[in-house]
């Protein structure tokens, strides 16, 4: 997709600049853009390292296990067909917790493993099962407790308080997730008729 949008954007900008007399601005903006990426990236590295370091500690403590326990009843409700499939539920919990904690590199492997164990109990191997639908939706809406990358970017742009978007993010991610869950449940109900 971006293979089309990206070049077209640049080409039409060039053409428009010729006709609107903005060619000087256009030319200098090319080099300004590179400069701002450099300054941005320097601070970004710092904040990303901080969070990856902290999350490595979380991975090695019992915090994960405790969170999984709290989450289990909710997951049982979301995955009624698979709640007795221990292997799948273990990976689903791991995947959800990693999403919540913003551990991107831990959530995807767990999610894929969960898909594989759900495929084993799937009656039609060509078609997503109900549990798979729910798992995919949980991962697209992805509740994230600490939006690390966004905080990192806000820090690098010298925001007054880089973390003050956390609460609006929580609100909109929860609304998004609820809409996702409800519409998936409706989709499942309708396709069973």
């Amino acid at each position: 997709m971006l293979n089309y949008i990206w070049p077209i954007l640049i080409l039409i900008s060039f053409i428009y600049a010729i006709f609107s007399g903005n060619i000087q601005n256009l030319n200098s903006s090319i080099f300004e853009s590179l400069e701002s990426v450099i300054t941005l990236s320097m601070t970004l590295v710092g904040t990303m390292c901080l969070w990856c370091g902290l999350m490595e500690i979380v991975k090695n403590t019992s915090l994960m296990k405790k969170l999984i326990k709290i989450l289990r009843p909710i997951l049982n409700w979301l995955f009624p067909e698979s709640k007795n499939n221990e292997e799948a539920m273990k990976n689903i919990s791991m995947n959800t917790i990693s999403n919540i904690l913003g551990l991107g590199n831990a959530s995807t492997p767990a999610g894929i493993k969960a898909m594989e164990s759900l495929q084993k109990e799937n009656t039609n191997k060509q078609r997503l099962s109900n549990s798979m639908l729910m798992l995919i939706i949980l991962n697209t809406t992805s509740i994230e407790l600490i939006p690390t990358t966004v905080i990192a970017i806000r820090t690098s742009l010298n925001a007054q308080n880089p973390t003050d978007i956390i609460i609006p993010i929580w609100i909109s991610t929860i609304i998004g997730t609820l809409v996702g869950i409800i519409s998936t449940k409706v989709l499942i109900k309708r396709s069973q008729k």
Partner: protein
Amino acid sequence: MIYISAMIIPTIISIILFVGLKEKKNVYDLFVDGAKDGIKVALKLFPTLIGIFLAIYMFRSSGLIDFICNIISNITKIFKIPSEILPLAIIKPISGSGSMAIATEIMAHFGVDSNIGKIAATIMGSSETTFYVIALYMSSVKIKDGRKVVIPALLADLASIMSAILFFNLKN
């Protein structure tokens, strides 16, 4: 409100370190080890940032963006959607690093503490790259029939984008 959000990060850091100490982990070694991954994440984002920033800067400086925003804003005004957010809302479900770069550019251009900048940040933090996740998960088990999973996924995206916009519109 400001006080609470200023508390969140220090509290989380303290809880993590406290539990680590209590369970007698080598907290510092773990921290340093994990921090290495941060470089990888930032490095992975770098080329995309260059590409997107280049395109958006040219798009802006040519004056074309004002021309298009003027046309679209007549429609988006009805729903009180700031037209500056539209490019982000469109790219968000398609490309993760692409939309991250667009959001960053919006924050840099309109001010990181402006309403537009905060809406962009909220949209970025509130969901994953929908089409990427769907493609990845379906191909991992080689399933082709997706049972219209795209519909609830996009509905969820729309809901979280709208609530991000609404939150900051209501605040003012």
